[in-house]
């Protein structure tokens, strides 16, 4: 698209974005974890993977800010670096779901008719199923790895995003600019992707950020039950699962990982809210 072509419109959007406190806080949290994931090894005071059997399950102290786990590994360093896998898997899964969902939604909304009716009912039926169970069964069947987790969550999200995009598409198709494009002989693909897509993209982008929050939660849950990210990753979900039984006496082995997961989800949701209201103003 051509944001550069219309300086004033683009500037307006930026100004609105900078005014939105929700958006700024969300972006701040998100950026913090992205920096941690990218440069974690340089930021951690200790080696997150090094065990120290002489000081296992040590409470928070000056040496170990967040204490140590069952193997004597530094929890603080592991929390810092624990965002790495989830920040690769969750966004990729969301992106996959958004791309597939957008294409499906555009197609259904453009052609409508019998196929749309059938597919839309199937989508509704799928949404009635608990998604974690569906994903779990799929992962159990094809085996788990970061790649399969991305694919499974991506596919699970596809119908949800398709529904949103289709709804936006139904409004657009009726507008006269679409008729004008057909009159000059543009094919279905050109009308869908060149003419209409840029106008439904804001909807898809907002939906994508909302889904990202869910995806993070989803990946963390799968990791917790052992079907998501696999050890030896310092992933928060795995850490919570490993130390789950110690929650009574060694709270520090779980609390910080749980708080980190929560803060990431809150950050993403703030971005989704802020982005939604900024794009709505356009």
């Amino acid at each position, binding site marked *: *698209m051509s944001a550069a072509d*219309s300086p004033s419109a683009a500037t307006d959007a930026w100004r609105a974005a900078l005014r939105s406190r929700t958006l700024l806080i969300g972006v701040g949290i998100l950026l913090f974890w992205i920096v941690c994931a990218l440069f974690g090894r340089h930021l951690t005071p200790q080696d997150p993977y090094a065990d120290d059997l002489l000081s296992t399950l040590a409470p928070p102290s000056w040496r170990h800010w967040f204490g140590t786990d069952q193997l004597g590994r530094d929890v603080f360093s592991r929390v810092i670096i624990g965002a790495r896998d989830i920040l690769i898997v969750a966004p990729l899964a969301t992106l996959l779901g958004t791309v597939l969902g957008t294409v499906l939604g555009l197609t259904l909304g453009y052609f409508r008719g019998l196929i749309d009716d059938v597919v839309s009912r199937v989508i509704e039926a799928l949404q009635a199923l608990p998604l974690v169970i569906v994903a779990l069964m799929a992962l159990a069947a094809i085996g788990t790895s970061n790649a399969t987790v991305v694919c499974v969550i991506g596919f699970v999200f596809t119908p949800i995003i398709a529904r949103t995009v289709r709804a936006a598409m139904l409004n657009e198709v009726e*507008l*006269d*600019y679409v008729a*004008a494009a*057909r009159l*000059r002989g543009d094919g279905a693909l050109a009308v869908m992707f*060149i003419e209409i897509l*840029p106008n439904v993209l804001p909807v898809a982008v907002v939906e994508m950020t909302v889904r990202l929050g869910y995806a993070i939660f989803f990946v963390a849950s799968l990791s917790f039950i052992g079907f998501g990210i696999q050890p030896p990753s310092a992933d928060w979900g795995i850490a919570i699962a490993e130390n789950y039984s110690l929650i009574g006496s060694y709270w520090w082995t779980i609390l910080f990982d749980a708080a980190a997961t929560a803060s990431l989800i809150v950050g993403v949701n703030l971005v989704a809210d802020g982005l939604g209201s900024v794009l709505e103003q356009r």
Partner: protein
Amino acid sequence: MSSAGEQGAAALRIEHLEVIYRVGARARRVISDLTLTIRPGESYGLVGESGCGKSTVAFAAVRYLARNGRVNRGRILVDGRDLMRLSARELRQLRAGSVSMVYQDPARALNPTLRIGAQMAEVFEASSGLRGAAARERAAAMLERVQIPSPGRVLDSFPHELSGGMQQRVLIGMALSNNPALLILDEPTTGLDATVEAEVLDLIAQLRAASRTSVLFISHSLAVIGRMCDRIGVLYAGELVEEGASQEVLNDPRHPYTVALLRCIPGHGRRKQQGRLETIPGFLPTPGSSDGRCVFVDRCGNATDRCRREAPAAFELPGLAAPRLTRCFYPERAPALPHVDDGSAPVPRLAAASEPVARPLLRARRLSKTYQIAGRSFQAVHDIDLELWPGETLGLVGESGSGKSSLAKLLLGLSAPDTGSELELAGEPLRPLAGERTQAQRKALQIVFQNPGLALNRSQTVRSLIQRSLRLLQLPRPRREQRLLELAASVRLTARHLRDKPRQLSGGLQQRVSIARAFAGDPRIVVCDEPTSALDVSVQAAILNLLTDLQLSQGVSYLFISHDLNVVRYLSDRIAVLYLGRLLEIGPTPSVFAGPQHPYTEALLSAGDLGRTRLQGEIPSALSVPSGCVFQTRCPRKLGPICEQREPPLLQASDGHVIRCHIPPAELQQLQRRYERVE
């Protein structure tokens, strides 16, 4: 100025009003130093183009400005009471008892989930404490007063079950129910068809004569205001630039803006062969940007250095019987305002009269379109035979719901006609859908839509909007750029506009882009679907001139759809009249206007005059088309059973002029002559 004291309390008195809107961090002054008085029983018209502050005045008069708006200075007195000093409770009482407002869009002013009876009863509860059966009785009486035939049925209806005209009657009834001292009508008929508008305006005039309610009538239409109001105020950029008795202001305007506005309107049977329409050059200034100079100076042909240095104050013209105000240093020069674009005007030749053309460019035979809705079928277009000749403009008129746009869609190939319909372009059969037609055929048929805001893709720049249509020509790259610039220049867009997105352009500029796009592929026929109905008159004039110029230079044919008969008359060589998807009359413009006319055409033409033929009721639903002649249910000249039993034939009135009526054209002519004599 002195009259307020003598006549007791004026219904509305506004003194030196200044209204400010806060936009972002900036404060914009949208109304400056506005003073006006509406005397008891008087009807005052406020006229001006969009963005000049008409509605702001209306909302200020009931202290109901948008949240970012504020009365910065001045006084507003309703019925003698200072609005700015009232407490919230007093204000509520005043709104319930003394002032009423009717808005432009009746569908949005009524609550869709409540029956009319419940909504009207609420008004009586608030104003006179009536409840239950008593309130309902009063509501029914009110509906009778606004001439609704079966009040009981209407009271039990939901708003969506009523037509637009009916809804507006209900709202007028609600507004009058508390016998207000002041009735504010904000563009009350703008969304209605001409025939319905005529009826609603008649109703307002009758009610006013009976009740002596004072009226503030807001409209963009000088014709409507002139008909309905005792006095007129002309608003421009938030200032009242001229005020006086309606007929005097309209016949002898003393402010250059009023003069220019009146000259923009195609009227008095004016046709394109008689020269171009005048326009007002330039744009409305940004609100509050004209300090220390006249607001109209940039667009005024009479402007002098004084106008640029000093803002003229409103003053009373001396030596006149009725008081007249103008805000111009040189009111005596206003009538001699230099004409814009005259003299050099190219006079188009009448296409039909030029060279004899062997065959029509576009020919439709037995064109029908049936839609299926919820198991029921209805015909939007029924058995239409039509020809469009090279270089001519065919005007298509009819009320909304008459099938004008459906017909256009069939010709363009945006929807497929019923089997048995035939379309021919330059002698070649035309496939039903645009996608199935050849590139050359698609190129030949293009459209300019009514609402450019929806017709232009908002995510593309003007450049890419035009470029994408230019690909129809399959030009090599360097030629394409050259053609783009030519095209932009031909619709008078500058290079600066090419970088903009539609949102950044005004309505008039957007419509130019839309026209450029339609002409990008060198079309032979352009369908213009109400291309100026969303625009102000000064902008409309420029667009009509542009269309005329392009027709002359490109030799295209237009199918021009409009509800504005003056515009159609100005532009069209022939006129086709549509009703419920049927062609009722077609003929050369002069013959159609001279008569004989189909009774429906006659009613359409007289909609603009007070007290002439009025149609009963509104266009029937296409789901229940009347038997025999489709127009028989509303026809003022209905003969009898024959009209209900047999569809009338198309009878020839004169060369190329046919009328679908059981009354022979000669007889129609006589009936219509006699009618005119009675007038």
